[in-house]
C-alpha cells in the first residue's frame, strides 16, 4: 500500500485547521501589531459554544441539520468574547508600550482557560463532541473521514469569502488602509476602532469554524485544546508571513503536511530512525520554520516592510 496520499491528506486536513485559526493571528497582527496569544482560547470557546448548541437540540435530529446552528452558536460565543477582550483588555492599552498588551494577552489566555474549566459543566475533563456516522470515503487513494470533509469544504469557502471581503467591500478596503497606516487612515475618515473590532471578530469567527472542525474530527474538546492549536496556528501565521491572510492558510497547510510527513517518513531516512515518528514531528515542523525564516525572514508570502514602531 502506498501511504503517501494518505499522509498528504492527513496533513492537509490538519493544516487547513491550523490555517483557519492562523487567520485570527495574522489579521490582528496586520492591523495593530499585537500577537493575540488569547486567540487559542477564543478557538476553544468556539468549540464549547458549538457543543452547547448541540446539547440544546432535541435528540434524534440529524447532525447535518444541526451543524449550521452549531457553527452559528460557536461563532457568536467566540466573537462575543473576542470583541469584549478587545474592548476591555486591549483597547485601553493601545498606546501603551507593546509589551503591555502582549502580557495582557497571556493573562487573558489563562483566565479564559480557567473560566471554562471552572464554570462550564463537566469541562474539567475532555467533553465528547458529536461526530458523523458512516464509513470513510476514498479519494485519490486516501481514506477521508466524513468529519474531515467538513474542514476541507469550509476552509476554502471561508478563504474565498474573506478574500472577496477584504478586496471588494468598503470595510475590507478600510481594513487594508488601516493596516498600511492607521493614522492616515483615520484622517481619511476611516473609523479605525470599528476596523480593529472587525478584525478581532473575523478572526474569532474563523477560529470557531476551526473548533467545530476539530470537534467533528477528534470527537472531543477540552479546555486545554487552545494552547497547542494556538501555538501551531501562530507558527503557521509566521511561516506564511504574518499579516498576510493567504499566507496564514498556506503556512497552516505547509505546517500540517510537514508534521504528517515527518511522522510518516523521517524514521525511514537512513541514520534518522531515532529522530522520526510522532514524538519528533513538532521538532521537524520548527526546523522547517527556522529554515524558512532564515531564507525568507518575511515568511512565505509576507512582504518586506519597514518596522513602524
Amino acid at each position, binding site marked *: 500500500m502506498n*501511504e503517501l496520499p494518505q499522509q498528504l491528506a492527513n496533513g492537509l486536513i490538519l493544516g487547513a485547521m491550523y490555517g483557519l485559526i492562523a487567520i485570527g493571528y495574522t489579521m490582528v497582527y496586520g492591523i495593530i501589531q499585537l500577537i493575540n496569544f488569547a486567540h487559542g482560547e477564543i478557538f476553544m470557546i468556539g468549540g464549547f459554544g458549538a457543543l452547547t448548541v448541540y446539547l440544546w437540540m432535541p435528540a434524534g435530529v440529524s447532525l447535518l441539520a444541526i451543524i449550521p446552528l452549531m457553527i452559528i452558536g460557536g461563532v457568536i460565543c467566540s466573537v462575543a468574547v473576542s470583541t469584549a477582550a478587545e474592548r476591555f483588555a486591549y483597547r485601553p492599552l493601545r498606546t501603551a508600550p507593546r509589551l503591555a498588551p502582549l502580557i495582557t494577552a497571556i493573562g487573558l489566555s489563562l483566565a479564559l482557560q480557567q473560566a471554562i474549566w471552572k464554570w462550564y459543566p463537566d469541562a*474539567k*475533563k475532555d467533553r*465528547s463532541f458529536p461526530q458523523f456516522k458512516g464509513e470513510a470515503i476514498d479519494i485519490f487513494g486516501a*481514506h477521508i473521514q466524513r468529519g474531515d470533509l467538513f474542514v476541507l469544504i469550509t476552509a476554502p469557502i471561508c478563504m474565498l469569502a474573506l478574500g472577496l471581503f477584504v478586496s471588494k467591500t468598503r470595510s475590507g478596503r478600510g481594513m487594508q488602509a488601516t493596516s498600511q497606516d492607521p493614522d492616515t487612515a483615520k484622517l481619511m475618515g476611516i473609523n479605525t476602532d470599528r476596523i480593529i473590532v472587525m478584525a478581532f471578530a473575523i478572526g474569532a469567527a474563523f477560529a470557531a469554524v476551526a473548533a467545530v472542525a476539530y470537534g467533528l474530527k*477528534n470527537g472531543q474538546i*477540552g479546555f*486545554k485544546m487552545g494552547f*497547542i492549536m494556538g501555538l501551531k496556528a501562530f507558527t503557521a501565521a509566521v511561516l506564511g508571513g504574518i499579516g498576510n491572510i493567504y499566507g496564514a492558510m498556506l503556512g497552516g497547510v505547509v505546517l500540517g503536511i510537514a508534521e504528517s510527513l515527518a511522522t510518516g517518513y523521517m524514521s525511514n531516512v537512513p541514520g534518522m530512525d531515532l529522530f522520526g*515518528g510522532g514524538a519528533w514531528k513538532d521538532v521537524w515542523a520548527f526546523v522547517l520554520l527556522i529554515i524558512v525564516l532564515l531564507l525568507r525572514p518575511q515568511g512565505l508570502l509576507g512582504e518586506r516592510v519597514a518596522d513602524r514602531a
Partner: protein
Amino acid sequence: MRHRSLLILTTVLTTGALTLTACGSRDDSKKGGDSGGTQTVVIGVDAPITGDLSALGLGIKNSADLAAKTANKENTVPGIKFEVKPLDDQAQPSVGQQNAQKFIDDDTVVGVVGPLNSGVSQSMQKPLNDAGLTQISPANTGTELTQGENWKTGDKKRPFKTYFRTATTDQIQGAFAAKYLYNNAKIKQVYLIDDQKPYGAGLAASFKNTFTTLGGKIVGSDHVNPDDRDFNAVVTKVKKSGAKAVYYGGEYPAGAPLSQQLKDSVQIPLMGGDGMYSADFIKLNKKAQGDIATSVGKPVEELDSAKKFIADYKTAGYKDAYEAYGGGTYDATWSIIEAVKIAVADNGGKLPSGDDARTKVLAAMAKVKFDGVTGPVSFDEYGDTTNTMMTAYQVDGGKWTSKLSEAYKP
C-alpha cells in the same frame, strides 16, 4: 514620615503574624499531647486538586476523607479521631515538595496519602523520609520508587523506608498485559505506542520485554505527544505495518482519539493500562468496542468491600466521582488508620506523644494487613503492595467487561 508609618505597619503586621503563629502551634501541641479524652490525628493528602488531572485528584481527596470519616463513625481506633488535611500539588513536583514540608511541620500529621504522579512522589520521598513520616501513594506505578534506580538489572534496593504504595508497578502491569494479549487474545503482532511520560514509557517498555520473550513480534513503534488529539499520521503507519493490535502506554485523554482514529482506518484493538481503564475512555471514543485495558485488583462488582465503598461514597454525597484511584486511596488511608491502631494498642491505648508517634506508626506499617476495597492489603519488604491481582477488561457494548483476573507471578 512615610518611612516611619511603613515601619509601624511592618511592626504591627509582624507582631500580628507572630501572635497568630504562636496561637497555632500552641493549639497543635495541645491536640497532639492531650492525654485524656479524644486525640485528633491528621492524615495529610497530597493530590492535584486543580488542573487537568483534577478529576483523579478530587477522587483521591474524597476517598481519603471517606476513609477517615468511616473510621470515626465505626470508632475503629478508640479514643482517636481522624482528620484529613488535603493539599493541592497541581501535579507539579516543586509544589509537592512544599506540601511535604507543610506536613512535616504540622506535628499532628502522622501519615501522608498521595500523590497521584510518580514525578511528584520523587520530590516528596526524601523530605518525608528524613522526617520519618509515612507516605502511601494510591497511584504511583513507577517501579524505581520502591525498588531503586537499578531494578532492571535485578539490583533491587529500597531507597526510602517511609514510602509505601497500594498501586502495583508498571513492570507487573505491562507483563500481565503482554501475557494476556499473547496467550488469551492470541495476538502475536503488535505496534507499540507510548506518550513519553514516565508512566506510559515504563508500561510500554515492560510490555515489550515480556511480549518479545513470549515470542510475540513488535512490528513497529512510535511515540506521541500526550497533548495531541490528531494521530492520523501514526495510524497510517500502523496500518502499513500489518499489526494485529496496538499497545498504548499512556492515559485515556489521548488514548480515546487514538483508538478512534485507528479504527477509522483499520479494525484492530487498542490495548492500554489502568490509565486507559476509565469510563471516560468509552465516552470520548465512539469506536471503543473491542479495546482492552488492564487494571489493578479484581473487578469492583466481585468484591463486597468495594460495594460498601461505592455505597458509602454515594451516601457521603461527594460532588466528584471516585475515579480510577478511589479504592486504592481508601485502602492507603485505611493502612495508616490500621497502623495508628497498632501503635495505639502497643502503647496502652493512646498514641505515643511527639515524634514517637510517627516512628511508631511507621514501624507498624510492616504489620498492617486487612481486606481492603481492592483486595487484601499488606506491604512487602520494598513497600510495594503484595496484592498483584490484575484484571484484563475489554470494551463490550459500551462498557468495560472483565475478561480475566489473575494474581501475577513474575
